[in-house]
């Protein structure tokens, strides 16, 4: 029975307060409001991240590809350099062969030249001839060829000549260049072989 009392009293007082400044109280009441949701603008961020990701991946890919490509280029250039080096060396060898004093001397001898024997000079200041100039003569020449080494007869047999009738008389017109191949050939050591001739059929 007593219970209604506080209840009954409270509403009473509250009602009273309400009554006193109902409008103000009504205005001052605090309520939990939901946090103000400013919608974050997602698009630029996602775009940025995606771009970085894609850019990174593509960049890395391109970097790798370039490096790979460069390595191929380097490899092929190295091969080329090696080739050129060896070509240069081969040409150098050819040059040295052409410059060989023996070769030059043999060529000069073939042209009928002989070594000069008596050195003489003209002094340009007064036109005086120093030394005893003498025209070179055939007696001044001497044999500069490498002596031929005589091989035993067993190593230099006489060529064996086998006469056969020409079988293909009609081919003379078109394969004139190839026909020497078909004939009897003499090898380096003088041995005669016929089997080289079948080269033309290959």
């Amino acid at each position, binding site marked *: 029975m007593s219970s209604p009392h506080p209840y009954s009293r409270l509403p009473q007082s509250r009602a009273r307060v309400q009554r006193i400044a109902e409008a103000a109280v009504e205005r001052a009441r605090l309520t939990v409001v939901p946090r103000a949701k400013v919608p974050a603008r997602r698009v630029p961020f996602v775009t940025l991240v995606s771009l970085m990701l894609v850019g990174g991946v593509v960049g890395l890919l391109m970097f790798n590809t370039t490096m790979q490509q460069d*390595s191929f280029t380097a490899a092929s250039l190295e091969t080329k350099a090696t080739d050129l080096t060896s070509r240069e060396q081969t040409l150098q060898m050819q040059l040295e062969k052409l410059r060989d004093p023996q070769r030059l001397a043999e060529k000069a001898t073939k042209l009928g030249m002989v070594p000069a024997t008596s050195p003489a000079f003209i002094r340009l200041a007064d036109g005086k001839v120093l030394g005893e100039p003498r025209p070179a003569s055939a007696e001044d020449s001497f044999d500069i060829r490498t002596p031929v080494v005589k091989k035993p007869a067993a190593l230099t047999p006489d060529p064996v000549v086998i006469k056969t009738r020409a079988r293909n008389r009609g081919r003379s017109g078109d394969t004139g260049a190839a026909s020497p191949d078909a004939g009897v050939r003499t090898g380096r050591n003088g041995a005669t072989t016929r089997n080289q001739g079948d080269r033309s059929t290959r």
Partner: protein
Amino acid sequence: MSLRPPSARGFSRGSGLFRLRFGFIIIAMVLSVFGARLVQLQGLDPNAYAAMAEREGVVNAVLPAERGAITDRNGVDLATSVDGMMIVADPSMTDGDAAPIAAYLAEKLDLDYVTTLNRLREKDTRFQYIARRIPSTIANKALGELEDRGYKGLSVRRDPMRDYPAKDVAANLIGFIGEDEALAGLERTFDSTLSGVDGEETYEVGDGKRIPLGDSTSVAPKNGQDLQLTINRDVQWYVQRVLRNTVRSSQAESGVAVVMDSKTGELISLADYPTFDATEPLSSAKSEDDLGSRAMSDVYEPGSVQKVLTFASLIDAGKVTARTRIAVPSELRREGRDIPIHDYWQHGLLRLTAAGVLSKSSNIGTVRAAERISSADLHDYLREFGLGERTNVGVRGETNGILPDKSLWTQGTHDTIAFGQGLSVNAVQMAAAVNTIANGGERISPSLIKGSATTDAGQTVGTERTERTDVVSEDAAEQVTEMMELVADPEDGIAPAAAVPGYRVAGKTGTAQRVGKDCGCYDGTYTVSFAGFAPADDPRFTVYVVVQDPGNGGGGGSVGGPAFSKIMSYLLRKYAVAPTGTKPSTLPVEW
């Protein structure tokens, strides 16, 4: 879910929990397979797998050091290294096409057809050499051509070549290289200088290409150093040809020619005959002796050329002058000597000056003059001239020569040494001794290497190590030079063939008895020689020609003289040495 067609609901795979469990089991199974594989790879014998991976992708390459070249004094190559290739075949692949491949290679590379064919058909092997030491351009071209024609089973490998472009020119000095190592000559003596140190490289490859940023280490090769000689290739060639001609036309056994720069002692040419072709040493040399340098290794008795040294010593010691009068009897009997000393020509009593004794090459006169000097003094002079001691120019196998110790000298030794018998020299020693006269009495140690280089015996040789010693006075050298001028004099001399028209030439012939190989005694054969220099009053070159055992009975004047003249004229012309234009020697030869 709401969009799903209603009919799909009937086929649902049970509850979410079931699906979750099912998924986990699948994942666990897959992961355990991975795990087992991981244990297999990493737990059980991981090294074998690592090694396998390495074999697959790691290349170990040797970076070969390039062997240095041997050049002449002007940098012209006498021996160079060339990138060579070897062609190897796998006969199991080439067997079928052996004939066409062999025919092609035989033609392109100048190989023997039958040998090549047999190698291409060899049974029970997968490796055969087809050709070795071919320039790489040629090898690659041939191989490329064969591949284009569809023949397989051939490949090329690196095989460095040594090229001797001048072939036999200076071959006796330079030597040659075998398959794998230097076998003779300077190639062998200076091998450590020439060969350099190989480098090494390890890198990863994928698909035959190097992986960038892959693991790699590399040690750069250290290329060999070049060796520059004091030889001039063209002079060497000419001297060798003159020498060959001289030896062959006099039917001699062998010959040596030395050309020395009088002022510097540099050897411009050091020629030997017989010689060999350095590009094919084994087939072109007739005997093993031909492969070395006889100029350095052959000892012989110098004969009358020695008289130059004897008279230089006598004049320097103040015992005689060029005009000293010497009575020369027809023969000279000495105590303790059964055979009297003779001259090479018959004569009665001659009244010769010292100059006459030298220019006519009288043994008796020389012995009479040499009586005036003590054995010890003469020995010391000859020692100073460099006899009995290696020249150490850097050629292997050099002999000391034999100059008997002074304690062993008897009167007989003294007499014979005075005219050049009873002592032995090598050609370079003797050339350097005669050059002492040309250089005003100052001996210059000869050199063959420009700059300096260290031999395999650890000795440093070369022009930088040149030593100069005063042996005789300038006046003595001048007097001897004037005496030597008479040798090539057309009237007073015995070797007019050695003269170079227009020039003053000083020289001396030598004809010495030779000790035979078998008997150890004089066997009736001779060593003939000519040593000299020009122009006499301002010497530029000293030339020494030695011919062993001429079969035509020629002497130093008739065999050595013309060769000397040819070589000297060539040198004077090539180096543009004009005649000095002074008056020749007018020393009296008789009284």
